[in-house]
C-alpha cells in the first residue's frame, strides 16, 4: 500500500452503516488518515438492519456500531446533528446547516436514503409516520400507545417488518399494498400468495391491489383511508413504507451527475462525476441500479477505500439474494426469482397444509440455477445460493433440491463442493479461500476464525455455512474438533449419553472403568449423574450415585454463601392453598429462616443448616409439599398467569395447564435447568416467551414456543407450533425435552443448544413435528418411563435412615456448627459479614433453633 500520494483530509458526509464501514476500513488501511465524520443524525452509526429489535428491547446503545470514544481513539473527528447543505466543489469546502465549514481533499457521500411517502392528501399529519431511524421508532412507540389500529402502507420487505412491530405493540394491524401481491420485488405470484395467507393466519390483515386516494378523519378511529373505488379502512395510525429514495439532494444541488430516477452516479471505484467526490451505499447509483442492502454498500466502501490508498479493488455489482424471517415466516429469494432470463424454466413445490412454497428457476439446459423463491421454509437457501453464485452443475433432477427429503433426494451441498472463490459471508466479503488462508496461518478454532475474518459478525445469516466450511477444512487437516467433556473422558456429553444407553451402564464406576481414566471430577461426575438419572431415573441419593452429585444435589438444597441451604417446596403453577402458606410460615418462624418470594412464583426459605434439612422437609412433606428441585439441573418452575378461570381476557385455563405440565416433568434431569410458563392469552403475563418451553393459549388451543431464556444472555423463544390441542402439545413437549436431554452438551440451555444444532429451528421442527429421524416414539416412551418412576427425593430421603445419616453435621458430635452466624435485618436473619463475625454485636444465636 502506498501512502505517498494519499489525500490528507477526508470528509465523510453521513454516518450510517456504510459511512461507518468506510471509516473503519480506511482507518485500518491507513491509520494516519485524517478523517472528519459529519452525521446528520443526533448520534453516530447504529445497526439499521436490526432496527426492529429496538421494539423487542434493544436499546440505542446496544444498536450502536461505534462510540465517540472509539472514534476519538482512532483520531477520527466527528460531529452529530451536522447536516451538510452546501458543497463548494471549487474551494473544496462543505458547510453544515448550522454554518460550520470543513475543507476536504476528498469528499465521501454516504447519505443513504429516505423513506418515500406517497403524496396522498392528508399524509402529512401527526400519527402518519415512517420507519428508518431510532427517532422514527420512538415516534411509532409513542403513537402506538395512543392507538388501537395501525396500518402499514407498503407490503415490501420493510413494510412487513414494520407490520410485525405494530403487531408486537398490540395493535390490530393491517398492511395495504398497491400491487396485487406482497414483496413483489423478491417473490413470484405463488410465493406472494402463500406469504399473504401465512401472515393473515398470524392475525395481520393484508389488503392487496389497493390505492389510497385520501386520508380523512375517521368515525371509529382517528383516520379513514379512502381507497380508489369506494372501499375504505379506519385506523389510528399510518406507517408509510412504500419504498426508499436515495438521499441525493447534495448531488442535485451541486451539479454531480445523477440518474434519471435519482441516485448519485458512480463508477467501479465509486467515484462520482467529480474526481474528488465519492458516493457509497444507498445513495449511489451503479450501472443504473440502487442497492438497498447493506452488503453491497460495504463492498462499495471497500472499493472507495482501495481507490483512495492506491489499491485496485473495484465494485462490480452485488448479489441481492435475501433470506429473512417476516412475522415469523421464513422467506428467501435468490437471483432471477421471476424467471425473466430468456429460456428460463422453473420447478415449483407447494404444500398448502403446511404453508410451504418453493420454486427454483434454471437455465434452458437445466445446467445452472438462476433463481429461487422460498416461503414458509428456507432451509435450502444456503445450498441453493451456492449453486447459483458459483454456477455449480445441477443434479440430474433439479427438483430434488426442493422436494421434501425422501430416499434418493439430493444431499445438501457439502462445504467441499464449493470452489475457493465461493462467497461465504457477503456482509464482510469473506470467501472460502479467505477462511482456508486463515486456517493455514494457524487459527484453528471457530471463534478465532470469526474474529480474524469477521465472517458471520454482520447479519449473522452465514453462521451455519461458515461452521460447515471451518469444520470440513479442519477435518481435512486432521485437526480434531475436540468436544471432550474433561480429562477423564474423551467423549462429548452426547456420546456419553449413547454409551450409557446402548451399553446399559448403570453406574459411574462402570462407565469410568470401561471408557474413562483417573477418578473423575466435578465436571464429569455430575454430568454422568444427570445422564444416569434421565436414562434410568433411579433415586438420586442411591449409594452409587451419591458421590457424583454436586453438593446441591447431594443435600437436596442450594448451598448459600455461608454453607447453609435454601429450601424451596414445589408450588406447581404458583398455586398454593392457605394451609400451605400457613405451614411454610410456621416452619420459617420456628426455625428462624429468612423468607422470600422467588422470581419463579414460589417461596424460598434461607438459612437452614444441613442437619436441620431432613426435619424441616419432614414437616413440609407431612403438609403435602414436595421438593421443588431448586437445586437440580432439572425442571424448575412452570410459571402461570391466572387465565380464563378468573381473568376477563383469558381464553384457556392456563393455571390448570401449568400444573399439569409441572407435575408431568418435575424431577426430570437435564444438561441444565429447564423452565416453562403458560399464559392464558396473548397478553402473556406469565412471560412464557422467556422460557425454555413457553405455552400461550389461543382461541383454538395452545401455541408452543421453545428455546427462550432470561439470565445472562436473554433470548426470546421461537414460535414452534400453533393452535395445538392438549394431547399434541404434551406429545411435542415430551419429544422436545427428551431430544434436548439426549443431545445437548453439559450446561447448555435450550437456546444455545438449538443455535448449535445444524439446521437450527427448522431441523428441530423436522425432528419433533415431522419425526424426520424416526425417534419420536422412542422419545415419548423414555419420557413416559421417567414420568412413571417419579419419586419426591426428599420424601425418599427422610424416610430412609441411611440417607438421613448423611445430614449429620459432624460424624462424632451432636454439637451445632458455630461457624454459621446470623444478624438481623428488616426483621429477618441474614448471614453475618466477616467484620460482624469479629465484632459479635447483634449476633443471633443460630444454635437454639432446632428444638422447634
Amino acid at each position: 500500500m502506498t501512502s505517498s500520494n494519499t489525500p490528507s483530509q477526508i470528509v465523510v458526509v453521513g454516518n450510517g452503516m456504510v459511512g461507518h464501514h468506510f471509516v473503519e476500513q480506511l482507518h485500518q488501511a491507513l491509520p494516519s488518515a485524517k478523517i472528519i465524520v459529519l452525521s446528520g443524525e443526533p448520534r453516530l452509526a447504529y445497526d439499521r438492519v436490526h432496527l426492529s429489535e429496538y421494539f423487542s428491547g434493544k436499546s440505542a446503545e446496544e444498536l450502536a456500531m461505534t462510540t465517540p470514544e472509539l472514534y476519538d481513539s482512532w483520531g477520527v473527528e466527528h460531529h452529530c446533528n451536522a447536516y451538510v447543505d452546501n458543497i463548494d466543489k471549487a474551494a473544496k469546502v462543505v458547510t453544515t446547516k448550522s454554518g460550520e465549514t470543513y475543507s476536504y481533499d476528498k469528499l465521501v457521500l454516504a447519505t443513504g436514503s429516505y423513506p418515500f411517502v406517497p403524496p396522498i392528501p392528508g399524509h402529512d399529519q401527526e400519527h402518519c409516520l415512517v420507519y428508518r431511524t431510532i427517532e422514527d421508532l420512538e415516534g411509532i412507540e409513542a403513537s402506538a400507545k395512543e392507538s388501537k389500529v395501525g396500518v402499514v402502507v407498503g407490503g415490501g420487505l420493510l413494510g412487513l417488518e414494520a407490520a410485525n412491530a405494530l403487531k408486537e405493540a398490540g395493535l390490530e394491524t393491517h398492511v395495504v399494498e398497491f400491487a396485487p401481491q406482497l414483496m413483489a420485488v423478491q417473490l413470484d405470484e405463488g410465493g406472494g400468495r402463500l406469504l399473504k395467507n401465512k401472515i393473515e393466519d398470524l392475525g395481520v390483515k393484508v389488503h392487496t391491489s389497493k390505492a389510497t386516494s385520501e386520508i380523512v378523519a375517521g368515525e371509529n378511529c382517528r383516520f379513514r383511508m379512502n381507497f380508489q373505488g369506494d372501499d375504505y379502512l379506519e385506523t389510528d395510525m399510518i406507517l408509510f413504507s412504500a419504498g426508499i429514495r436515495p438521499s441525493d439532494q447534495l448531488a442535485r444541488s451541486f451539479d454531480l451527475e445523477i440518474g434519471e430516477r435519482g441516485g448519485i452516479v458512480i463508477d467501479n471505484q465509486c467515484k462520482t462525476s467529480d474526481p474528488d467526490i465519492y458516493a457509497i451505499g444507498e445513495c449511489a447509483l451503479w450501472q443504473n441500479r440502487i442497492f438497498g442492502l447493506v452488503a453491497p454498500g460495504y463492498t462499495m466502501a471497500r472499493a472507495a477505500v482501495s481507490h483512495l490508498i492506491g489499491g485496485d479493488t473495484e465494485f462490480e455489482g452485488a448479489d441481492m439474494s435475501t433470506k429473512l424471517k417476516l412475522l415469523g415466516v421464513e422467506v428467501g429469494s435468490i437471483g432471477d426469482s421471476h424467471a425473466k432470463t430468456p429460456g428460463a424454466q422453473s420447478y415449483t413445490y407447494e404444500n398448502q397444509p403446511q404453508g410451504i412454497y418453493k420454486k427454483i428457476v434454471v437455465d434452458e439446459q437445466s445446467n445452472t440455477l438462476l433463481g429461487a423463491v422460498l416461503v414458509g421454509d428456507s432451509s435450502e437457501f444456503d445450498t441453493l445460493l451456492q449453486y447459483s453464485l458459483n454456477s455449480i452443475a445441477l443434479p440430474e433432477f433439479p427438483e430434488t433440491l426442493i422436494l421434501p427429503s425422501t430416499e434418493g433426494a439430493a444431499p445438501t451441498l457439502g462445504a467441499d463442493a464449493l470452489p475457493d472463490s465461493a462467497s461465504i459471508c457477503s456482509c464482510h466479503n469473506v470467501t472460502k479461500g479467505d477462511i482456508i488462508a486463515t486456517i493455514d496461518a494457524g487459527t484453528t478454532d471457530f471463534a478465532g476464525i470469526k474474529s480474524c475474518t469477521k465472517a458471520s459478525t454482520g447479519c449473522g445469516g452465514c453462521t451455519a455455512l461458515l461452521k460447515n466450511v471451518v469444520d470440513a477444512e479442519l477435518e481435512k487437516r486432521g485437526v480434531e474438533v475436540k468436544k471432550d467433556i474433561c480429562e477423564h473422558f474423551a467423549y462429548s456429553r452426547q456420546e456419553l449419553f449413547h454409551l450409557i444407553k446402548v451399553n446399559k451402564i448403570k453406574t459411574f464406576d462402570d462407565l469410568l472403568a470401561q471408557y474413562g481414566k483417573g477418578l473423575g471430577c466435578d465436571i464429569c461426575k455430575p454430568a454422568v449423574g444427570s445422564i444416569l438419572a434421565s436414562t434410568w431415573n433411579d433415586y438420586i441419593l442411591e449409594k452409587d450415585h451419591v458421590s457424583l452429585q454436586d453438593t446441591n444435589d447431594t443435600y437436596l438444597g442450594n448451598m448459600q454463601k455461608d454453607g447453609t441451604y435454601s429450601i424451596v417446596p414445589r408450588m406447581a403453577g404458583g398455586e398454593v392453598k392457605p394451609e400451605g402458606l400457613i405451614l411454610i410460615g410456621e416452619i420459617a418462624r420456628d426455625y428462624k429462616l429468612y423468607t422470600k418470594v422467588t422470581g419463579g412464583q414460589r417461596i424460598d426459605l434461607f438459612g437452614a443448616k444441613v442437619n436441620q434439612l431432613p426435619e424441616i422437609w419432614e414437616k413440609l412433606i407431612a403438609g403435602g409439599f414436595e421438593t421443588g428441585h431448586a437445586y437440580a439441573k432439572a425442571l424448575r418452575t412452570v410459571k402461570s398467569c391466572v387465565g380464563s378461570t378468573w381473568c376477563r381476557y383469558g381464553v384457556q385455563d392456563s393455571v390448570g395447564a401449568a400444573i399439569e405440565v409441572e407435575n408431568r416433568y418435575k424431577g426430570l434431569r437435564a444438561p441444565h435447568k429447564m423452565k416453562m410458563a403458560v399464559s392464558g392469552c396473548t397478553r402473556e403475563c406469565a412471560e412464557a416467551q422467556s422460557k425454555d418451553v413457553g405455552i400461550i393459549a389461543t382461541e383454538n388451543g395452545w401455541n408452543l414456543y421453545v428455546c427462550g431464556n432470561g439470565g445472562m444472555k436473554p433470548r426470546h423463544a421461537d414460535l414452534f407450533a400453533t393452535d395445538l390441542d392438549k394431547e399434541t402439545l404434551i406429545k411435542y413437549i415430551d419429544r422436545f425435552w427428551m431430544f434436548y436431554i439426549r443431545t445437548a452438551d453439559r450446561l447448555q440451555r435450550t437456546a444455545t443448544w438449538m443455535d448449535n444444532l445444524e439446521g437450527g429451528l427448522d431441523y428441530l421442527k423436522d425432528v419433533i413435528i415431522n419425526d424426520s429421524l424416526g425417534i419420536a416414539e422412542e422419545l415419548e416412551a423414555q419420557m413416559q418411563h421417567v414420568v412413571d418412576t417419579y419419586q419426591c427425593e426428599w420424601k425418599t430421603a427422610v424416610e430412609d435412615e441411611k440417607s438421613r445419616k448423611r445430614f449429620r453435621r459432624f460424624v462424632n458430635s451432636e454439637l451445632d456448627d458455630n461457624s454459621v452466624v446470623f444478624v438481623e435485618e428488616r426483621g429477618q436473619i441474614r448471614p453475618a459479614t466477616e467484620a460482624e463475625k469479629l465484632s459479635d454485636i447483634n449476633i443471633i444465636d443460630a444454635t437454639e433453633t432446632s428444638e422447634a
Partner: protein
Amino acid sequence: MSIEWHNVCGTDDLVINSGVCALLNGQQIAIFKVGTAPDAGIYAVDNFDPQGKAQVIYRGIIGSIGDKTVVASPLYKQHFDLASGECIESPDQKLQVWPVRVQGNSVQIGTGAN
C-alpha cells in the same frame, strides 16, 4: 514430636468417594475416603474453605487432576490436592492436612505433629 491419635469415627461412617466432617477440639476436619479398598486413600484436611470463607469442604466432589487426588470446593469449585492441601488454581491458598489412619474399625486423626 510425637503424634497423639484421636478416634473420630468408625470406618463405616465414611462414605466411599465422598466426605464427612469431624469436630476435634473445636476444629472442623473434613475426612474423605477415595476408592473402595478398606484402608485405601483416606484423607483429612481443614473443613474451612479459604476462598468461600465457610466450613464446607467436606461437601465437595472428589476427583483427580492428572495423578493428584483432589476435592472441589462446593462454593466456588476451586480444587485442593488432598495429599498436600494445596489449591491447584491459587497455590498460595492451602488447607492444613491432618495425619489420619485406620486402627481396627476406628478412623483416627493425629495431632501435635508439626
